[in-house]
């Protein structure tokens, strides 16, 4: 099904790739691999377990981890919760201090807020106006009581890429601060080498990479002997870190999607970067357009702009019939609040509210970009005219 609306919201979610859907479909029906992967006493279970382990190897290979590091979850939100609550509880005897950034995803921030209610202390660091979190800020915030540092790799709103190697080096100076990284937006856009980086815990999502919704993973380094307490109990699956029957078709889809991402990252990267610059050039010609984040430090698929002289909700409504984009992150759109990420970067409420996040993907075309330029240009001109600006 094609739509007259150009889809430019790939950072919110992506369509499942046809190759991925095919692999998933093989694991659903009676003539396929539908068995319970824990039931290894019969052929159905063994075949399912083989598919699950093959997917585990695909995910691990894509990010430079060991297959045994991969713990399946329902998505990055659950992985973030497992990492933060799990590490906080496991290491609570060593300290109850956590460091994170104000620009993290809600699943990290809300988990930290909940830990504060339970007696932990959390330091929320503010990145610079370019979205970059200086590793020195983390070094200053580290305390003997710090047990966890949680930093996202690629910001979901503005696309800023953090210097994980430098942050990991800072954390390594602490005897007990483990490093958790939310990498939901990274795979397929930025090369990740989990083992080389010195990261302890890494959260992944399938549906940002042309895999299915409802699948993700927490990568918990066995080599670094990181420990987390489980959130779910009953069954002991996934090294007892995530009990529950493994959704074979979901994890098989995630594995297939990550294998494709690994193969396609470089050509996609260049193609999407070119399209993004075309979009920026076209929109910025309007004047009064602010680019959020530093393009030299961001992934190629995200362009976040604030538009002067228009009200945010009207802007989104005016372009919505022609392009699918986000204002703020998808997770906060229902709240009708200015983006907390942009406010943390120093944008005032009006500019934070009148922001648009364009996120491009594998199926984005020049025609989509030209549609977006035309839609935004005509909407902004009209709204500025209505407001007398």
């Amino acid at each position, binding site marked *: 099904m094609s739509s007259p609306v150009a889809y430019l919201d790939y950072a919110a979610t992506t369509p499942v790739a046809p190759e991925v859907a095919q692999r998933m479909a093989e694991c659903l029906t009676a003539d396929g691999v539908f068995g319970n992967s824990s039931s290894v006493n019969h052929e159905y279970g063994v075949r399912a377990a083989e598919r699950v382990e093959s997917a585990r190897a695909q995910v691990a290979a894509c990010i430079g981890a060991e297959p045994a590091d991969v713990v399946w979850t329902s998505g990055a939100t659950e992985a973030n919760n497992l990492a933060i609550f799990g590490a906080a509880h496991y290491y609570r005897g060593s300290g109850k201090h956590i460091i994170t950034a104000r620009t993290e995803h809600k699943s990290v921030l809300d988990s930290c807020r909940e830990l504060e209610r339970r007696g932990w202390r959390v330091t929320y660091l503010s990145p610079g106006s370019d979205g970059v979190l200086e590793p020195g800020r983390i070094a200053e915030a580290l305390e003997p009581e710090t047990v966890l540092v949680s930093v996202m790799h690629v910001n979901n709103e503005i696309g800023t890429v953090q210097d994980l190697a430098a942050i990991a080096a800072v954390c390594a100076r602490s005897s007990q601060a483990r490093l958790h990284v939310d990498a939901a937006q990274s795979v397929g856009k930025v090369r990740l080498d989990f083992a080389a980086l010195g990261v302890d815990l890494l959260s992944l999502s399938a549906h940002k990479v042309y895999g299915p919704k409802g699948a993700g993973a927490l990568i918990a380094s066995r080599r670094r002997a990181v420990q987390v307490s489980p959130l779910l109990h009953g069954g002991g699956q996934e090294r007892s870190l995530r009990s529950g029957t493994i959704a074979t078709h979901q994890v098989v889809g995630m594995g297939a999607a990550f294998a494709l991402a690994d193969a396609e990252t470089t050509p996609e990267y260049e193609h999407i970067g070119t399209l993004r610059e075309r979009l920026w050039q076209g929109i910025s010609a309007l004047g009064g357009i602010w680019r959020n984040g530093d393009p030299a430090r961001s992934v190629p698929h995200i362009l976040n702009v604030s538009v002067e002289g*228009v*009200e945010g*909700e*009207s802007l*989104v*409504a*005016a372009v919505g019939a022609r392009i699918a984009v986000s204002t703020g992150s998808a997770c906060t759109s229902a709240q*009708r609040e200015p983006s907390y990420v942009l406010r943390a970067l120093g944008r005032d*409420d*009006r500019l934070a*509210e009148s922001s648009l996040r364009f996120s491009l993907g594998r199926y984005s075309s020049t025609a989509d970009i030209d549609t977006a330029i035309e839609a935004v240009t005509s909407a902004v001109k009209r709204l500025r*005219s*209505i*407001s*007398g*600006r």
Partner: protein
Amino acid sequence: MTYSELTRRCFEHATCAGEAGGADWFRGQAGSRERGTWVQFDVQVQSADAGGCVGAVRFLAFGCPHVIAACQWVAERAIGLALEPRLPESVQALRTRFEVPVEKLGRLLIVEDAWGAAVRGAVLRRNA
């Protein structure tokens, strides 16, 4: 956010948007851009011989689609009506008509305030 068909139509076809001035035009404003909603009405009043009614309306609005749609509707509906500081229908009725969420009620009050400010200027002139 989803919008009713009427809201979307008035928002997308804000044909009364603009400014106008002259001896028989009266201007009123309310709200602020910094706080997210600002509205200005220019109201033309017919001469007493012609009935002293509203002859034409133009508006400017910085606000959400509901605010722009309500301004457009008021600008269309007021023509030919007697000069009244009240809107052609109450704010509550406007809220129902445009299916405006209750948390946006304050924005409709800004529309009413801007209308009232323009009309009061006209009434003052007429009574002077």
